[in-house]
């Protein structure tokens, strides 16, 4: 079979697409009511999902994190999937049932300490033969803090500086071993070349620690670093030192603008265009035909946004009890409560609606223009980037997205757990492979290999990585 001509004529060499899979955690993407929906806790679900991703030659599996159950009206939010396992523990177990798949975990820097987190990621990197990645997030809120010794005392304005220093400190620990310290020669009795292996000192605003790190240098040197923020500061951090961005801008135009902006910042840090990958989250719905897929997508959206869910989501903006409204009816004519007390707790996205009156106005106009009910509005506004169509259509759309520099690939979030990736792996991936834009076999063994990233500060040459400006932006991925 001859390879069909590539449909996107950009005059540039074709980019290789990066694909990853997000095991959906707590969100309202997951259609838990589907008869095919399985457990979101049992290891068999994670193993199935990971094996599918590896069969499809994906770069990595992604896990989000949440450290307090969400509340609304002072009660635990019960309409979405609730509950998830511990990130490190699941990733370490998945390392046993996969060989090449990268293992990316979101770990909060606010309610952990650098020594412990660095030790866990270095351990995971060893135990997976170099497949670990860390999506650095931070949180300041006292609500989540109530589960931790540190509590909620961290002032909001300090969250960035703590996150930056946290990551810099972790790097000090990762780099405290060079990789050639363990001799383990039974004949001479020398185990360690240097009694001071792992020595570190970090003195800063948030951390004043010193001693010896106790995990030798891991296969990747340090885990791949993901960043998930969007602010000016977040973009600078990503450009300076993250390996990949878990981005929110997955619509084509916004994606292109974000991509161009962030990549243009790389040069001043002496970094190349390909040293930072931009990977938005995206969902997908497939069908035999485009029409069938569109129909399925409509059904999926209706299942994701029940009437009750629609009302609760409207409350994110209105900040009032809207239980008495009909989700199939018009938007409330009362204005949002603009007070500081939040009806909704434990959700990052609520902070995006800081000007509630403006959002309400915009939503009313949208609803009026399209004759949308409350539920219709939430269905349409709450949707993230979604690829809908036949496998050929979806493959084309993903490829076009990447070839036109709106992203370097995607982190796919299936709406079914754990089988939601299977159809994509079986139908879309082969088409991308035929186009020559996606790997047919893993070319390397580590996640850095898959992502085309260099291994930092390799051991024996005594080279140390440049000091880095590090930080992360609040984004508790859902």
């Amino acid at each position: 079979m001859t390879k069909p001509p590539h449909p996107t004529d950009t005059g540039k060499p074709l980019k290789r697409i990066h694909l990853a899979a997000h095991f959906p955690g707590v969100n309202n993407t997951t259609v838990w009511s589907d008869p095919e929906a399985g457990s979101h806790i049992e290891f068999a679900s994670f193993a199935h999902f990971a094996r599918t991703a590896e069969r499809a030659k994906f770069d990595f599996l992604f896990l989000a994190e949440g450290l307090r159950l969400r509340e609304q009206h002072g009660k635990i939010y019960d309409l979405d999937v609730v509950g998830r396992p511990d990130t490190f523990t699941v990733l370490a177990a998945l390392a046993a049932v996969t060989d090449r798949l990268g293992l990316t975990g979101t770990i909060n820097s606010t309610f952990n300490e650098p020594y412990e987190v660095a030790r866990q990621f270095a351990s995971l990197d060893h135990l997976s033969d170099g497949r670990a990645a860390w999506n650095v997030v931070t949180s300041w809120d006292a609500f989540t803090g109530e589960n931790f010794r540190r509590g909620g005392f961290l002032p909001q304005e300090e969250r960035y500086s703590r996150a930056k220093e946290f990551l810099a400190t972790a790097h000090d620990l990762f780099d405290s071993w060079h990789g050639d310290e363990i001799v383990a020669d039974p004949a001479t009795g020398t185990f360690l070349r240097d009694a001071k292996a792992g020595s570190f000192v970090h003195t800063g605003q948030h951390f004043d620690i010193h001693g010896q790190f106790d995990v030798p240098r891991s296969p990747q040197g340090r885990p791949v670093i993901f960043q998930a923020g969007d602010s000016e500061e977040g973009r600078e951090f990503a450009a300076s030192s993250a390996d990949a961005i878990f981005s929110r801008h997955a619509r084509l135009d916004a994606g292109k603008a974000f991509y161009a902006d962030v990549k243009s910042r790389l040069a001043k840090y002496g970094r190349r265009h390909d040293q930072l990958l931009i990977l938005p989250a995206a969902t997908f719905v497939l069908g035999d035909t485009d029409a069938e897929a569109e129909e399925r997508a409509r059904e999926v959206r209706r299942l994701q946004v029940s009437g009750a869910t629609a009302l609760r989501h409207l409350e994110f903006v209105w900040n009032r009890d809207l239980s008495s409204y009909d989700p199939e009816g018009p938007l409330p004519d009362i204005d949002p409560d603009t007070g500081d007390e939040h009806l909704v707790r434990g959700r990052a996205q609520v902070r995006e609606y800081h000007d509630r009156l403006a959002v309400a106005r915009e939503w009313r106009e949208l609803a009026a223009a399209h004759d949308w009910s409350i539920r219709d509005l939430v269905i349409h506004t709450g949707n993230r980037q979604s690829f809908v169509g036949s496998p050929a259509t979806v493959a084309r759309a993903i490829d076009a997205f990447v070839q036109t520099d709106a992203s370097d690939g995607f982190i796919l979030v299936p709406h079914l757990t754990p089988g939601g990736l299977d159809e994509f792996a079986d139908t879309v991936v082969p088409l991308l492979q035929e186009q020559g834009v996606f790997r047919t076999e893993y070319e390397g063994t580590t996640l850095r290999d898959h992502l085309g990233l260099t291994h930092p500060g390799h051991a024996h040459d005594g080279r140390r990585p440049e000091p880095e400006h590090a930080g992360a932006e609040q984004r508790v991925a859902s």
Partner: protein
Amino acid sequence: MSDASTVSSPLHLAVALDGTGWHPASWREPGSRPRELFTAGYWADQVAEAERGLLDFVTFEDGLGLQSSLLLDPDDRTDQVRGRLDAVLIASRVAPLTQHIGLVPTVIATHTEPFHLSKAIATLDHVSGGRAGLRVRISARPHEADHFGRRRVPRVDLAENLSAQPSVTDLFDEAADYVEVVRRLWDSWEDDAEIRDVVTGRFVDRDKLHYIDFEGRFFRVKGPSITPRPPQGQPLVTALAHQNVPYRLVARQADVGYVTPHDTGQARAIVAEIRAEQEAAGRAGEPLHVFGDLVVFLDETRAAAEDRLARLDDFAGAPYTSDARVFAGTPAELADLLEELGSTGLTGFRLRPAVTGHDLPAVGRRLVPELQRRGLFRRAYEADTLRGLLGLARPANRYAAA
């Protein structure tokens, strides 16, 4: 799931995994694979070996600093194993590769968060299908506190009675609170909290999720956990104890306590003390295993075992000493000793292989058959959870309405 009616083995056996073994020169022995200590394959092989021997569980040692030959301070030695991987992650990594054996990583209460730890062990229980436990430890090492920079750990005076030093009792009281929080979080979801009620659109019944509202001297934790109740309900809680204060921690909070008697008289006294503390804690009727810890050198002849110990001591440059009794002899002699110590009320043993690559296979392939011949040890795994293997019932949820 665990089955309380299962008759568990009359004697229980665990092994404690630490590096290449408990003797500091163990890494120099043939078969020790010291260069593989930081690979998954090394640990998978050790646990598979223990599982072939039908052992109840393995423990994984851990700490928050480099190993040291000194109790409280780092040393400058380069002739012993240094560096290790996180024990919870090792346990998780081997869980999918094993089917029956319990997995009990060490966790350090002094510097970690009970919320994180509770969900990690709950998840290990989910990942292993009900085979998770933890061994809780304190850290009284000032240099480990310096790795965290959040608190100072007052220097313990090793010449004084540890139980009389407030800094020690504080660390143990904190550990007791820590375990209390971990246990409450495990119960913070009732077993049937996830309802997936399509009609009302509710995924969980929030009346079956519980704030634990723990407030103690050392920390406060709100709850509930983010992780649903683990398969065992309560994974196994274990602790090593040498003196009264830690005995009290064992008596109050543990399912298994490890103790270090050097003879039957000591064993009897320790068991009596723990049982008395247990009664004082209002747990008199509850099952609590007390395991004796022993470092073991096992060979065909006692002379061979003693020679091996002498050779390793030579390598190390000093006679090996341990908190636990050091046994060097044949599997049959060890079986005799376990029988003798077992008569004191100890319900099992945690063996510390002096050289993992040598003594762990000897436990599974030589000692276990000997114990089986004597009718003291299981011939097949009789339950599919760790609690089941130990004859412990699956506990009711403290928050569930009666």
